[in-house]
């Protein structure tokens, strides 16, 4: 069996495949473990965020954006953990909710059980418990290469170095 133009085709093929398999080469068989955001004692004490953890993990950016819109546009300053999760008032329908639960295969959309009312504020409410930005926010954001623009406008909280 004759292979013509091996001198150009083989190197080309190898370069192409190496580009495709570059993540294997870059990682070199080892990578950092997936980060686990660290909870402050205060956050641990509260037990539950404004919504359940799976929901907060996946959807916190939308919750924060909703809070921003509602506060800035509508002047609505308070968030009730049972009634105000966005799918409860924006979409009417149990079917959609069931489908969402199936597709996310989690109880991510279970409304918050605390029933508390919160003041909608990143700096005042969120950062009160999660005062450790570098250990809580940045861990996952850096791991995934996400750079949210929260702190372009908001004042970054000072952290107590323990």
């Amino acid at each position, binding site marked *: *069996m*004759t*292979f*013509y*133009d*091996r001198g150009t*085709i083989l190197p*080309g*093929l190898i370069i*192409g*495949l190496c580009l*495709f*398999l570059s*993540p*294997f080469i*870059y*990682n*070199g*068989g*080892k*990578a*950092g473990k*997936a*980060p686990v955001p660290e909870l402050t004692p205060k956050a641990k004490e509260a037990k539950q965020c404004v919504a359940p953890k*799976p929901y907060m*993990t*996946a*959807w916190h*950016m*939308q919750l*924060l*954006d*909703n809070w*921003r*819109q*509602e506060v800035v546009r509508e002047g609505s300053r308070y968030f009730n953990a049972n009634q105000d999760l*966005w*799918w409860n008032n*924006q979409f009417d329908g149990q079917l959609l909710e069931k489908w*969402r639960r*199936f*597709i*996310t*295969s*989690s109880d*991510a959309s279970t409304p918050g059980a605390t029933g508390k009312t919160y003041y909608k504020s990143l700096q005042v409410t969120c950062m009160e418990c999660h005062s450790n930005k570098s250990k809580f926010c940045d861990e*996952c954001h*850096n*791991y*995934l*290469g996400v*750079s949210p*623009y929260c702190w372009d406008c908001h004042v970054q909280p000072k952290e107590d170095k323990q």
Partner: protein
Amino acid sequence: MNFILGMVIAAIGMGPVVMIPLVGVGLLKLNFFFGVIVPYAALAIFVIGMIYRVMNWSRSPVPYRIPTTAGQEFSYPWIKSNPIDNPKNTYGVVARMIFEVLTFRSLFRHTKLEYRNTETGPKIDYEWEKWLWLAALAFHYSFLVIFLRHFRFFMDPVPGFVLILEKLDGFMQLGLLPINGLGAPGVYLTDMLLMLALTYLLLRRIYIPQVRYISLPADYFPLFLILTLGTTGILMRYLIRVDITAVKELAIGLFTFHPVAPAGIGVIFYVHLFCLCVLISYFPFSKLCHMAGIFLSPTRNLANTSRIVRHVNPWNYPVKFHTYEAYENEFREHMIEAGLPVEKGLDSEPAKEAEE
């Protein structure tokens, strides 16, 4: 083939691609199978398939120069030639290939025949088909950027070029729609561009009769597959979010050979992943393989040296010659005896008969 039949066949092919992971992960909870085994199998098929395909191509000899000559050939220095569209050496070929691969130059020049109605009846027009070129360019570059952006899941730590791409791609800092609930995370331009370009390429196949006539299931299926891939990706980013830290844990596990299938990733992710697995395992055996084939196209990658260089057929076998000199040496005596003219006489002297 009837175009509706073609689309139906492609859609029938698409059905299982969505249903298998929905059932397999959503109901049967086969997370490890769909998160680890299927991706590894697909990757193996891709790598081996590509090697097979390219090496199979390299078995075809290309003895003659067959480049498409889209400009004046080089002849005399005082005749203006086109060194890129009719390359005379490797430099020209490299320039031609760069333009071909990066800007789809030959597609750019593509024209289509159209009938224009005038008062005296229909007239033929050759219309520059810029929309196909534009949509193809938008689609390919969007796909490339989206593919490279995904490296944030494949590589740890995230390399700098991915962060720059994300910044550029999401520079609008807007949500999907100006509706509460869709304001975050920020929209990526390439997501939208990819879907628009794909939709155009699909509608073009359906709308233009000539293109519709030559469209087969193998044309619709990749479009459907990439549309589904894009739709699930967009859904996952903007509407049905999943825990992406766990997603990266799974992806990094695959790329470091320490596979894990973390719990709590939504089914939508497995649909997305399965679409990708089908895409890359289908890749080497379909028209999508033009990604490798473009570099092996003899009409593009050969210099037009048909006249400058002598080309010898590489599979010429050695022919046994019997020259006239040898023939005469063999039969000289007989020839002289029979009175036939010879070039050389018997005693290696010039024969008198031959001179006369």
